[in-house]
């Protein structure tokens, strides 16, 4: 139940057991950038989108911790509120950061898969 539930930071997000949730990716700011790279969204839509993307369901506090930090860094920006819900979108700088992170991850995945092939 708690296995794929991400708390505030990336600490303690890898569980001790080796269940299927072990493969969930949980870097909240990167997940938010990934979600917003697909278009502007408000909090609830982001949570659902990220759950669909990688199976990780961010807690509301975790999500807004990531949103606040990303906004302060200028990587995402708020749009006018729709009633009480405020959508966010990724900025040009955020998109560049996201692309760079994806390129690094791609390299990492390739190297990791190659090493797994040795077993």
């Amino acid at each position, binding site marked *: *139940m*708690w296995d794929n*539930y991400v*708390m*505030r*930071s990336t600490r303690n997000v890898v569980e001790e057991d080796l269940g299927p949730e072990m493969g969930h990716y949980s870097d909240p700011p990167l997940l938010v950038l990934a979600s917003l790279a697909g278009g502007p969204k*408000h*909090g*609830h839509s982001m*949570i659902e989108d990220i759950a669909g993307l990688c199976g990780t369901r961010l*807690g*509301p*506090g*975790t*999500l*807004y*911790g990531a*949103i*606040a*930090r990303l*906004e*302060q*860094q200028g990587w995402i*920006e*708020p*749009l*006018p*509120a729709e*009633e*009480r*819900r*405020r959508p966010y979108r990724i900025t040009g700088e955020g998109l560049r950061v996201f692309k760079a992170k994806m390129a690094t991850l791609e390299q990492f995945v390739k190297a990791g898969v190659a090493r797994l092939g040795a077993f």
Partner: protein
Amino acid sequence: MKPGLARLLTRLYPRGWRERYGEEFVALLEDEAGGGLLAEVRAAVNVVWSALGERISPTPGGKMSRDPLSFGAIVRHPSAYVPIAMSVTALALLLGHIALFGTGPEVVINGRPDEGAVAHLWQLLMAAQLPVLAWFAIRWLPRAPRPTLGVLALQAGAVLAAMAPVFLLGL
């Protein structure tokens, strides 16, 4: 989650954080309803943990207490206040010149009549702010139409104020 509990949990965050994100955060907590009691407990624990983290290690930046799309926040952007400052400078130059030298005849330089340095400065200040105004409108109108229109009205007022002596005194 019930609105009362959502508001109570949001109050755990520092004031600045609440002023910036409180309303939308409460709305999110209310949206997260429907997952059953366990899901609500899980969300509540997550919020308590995150609020504690925010108190111990606040989000850096310092822009937390102001809605970045409010009039007060938008008017602080250089593209908002620089045109106003240029209009005010142009008006001050013009009024200063009129106070010191009146609205006398044109200066003659090398046998040709000239409007004088103050007139050229006024023209430069008024013309140079046009691209800044356009940039401001293009950048902010789609994001926050109402506050941006307020700032544009302020900028237009400053432009009109700077132009008024020219037309009223026939300069």
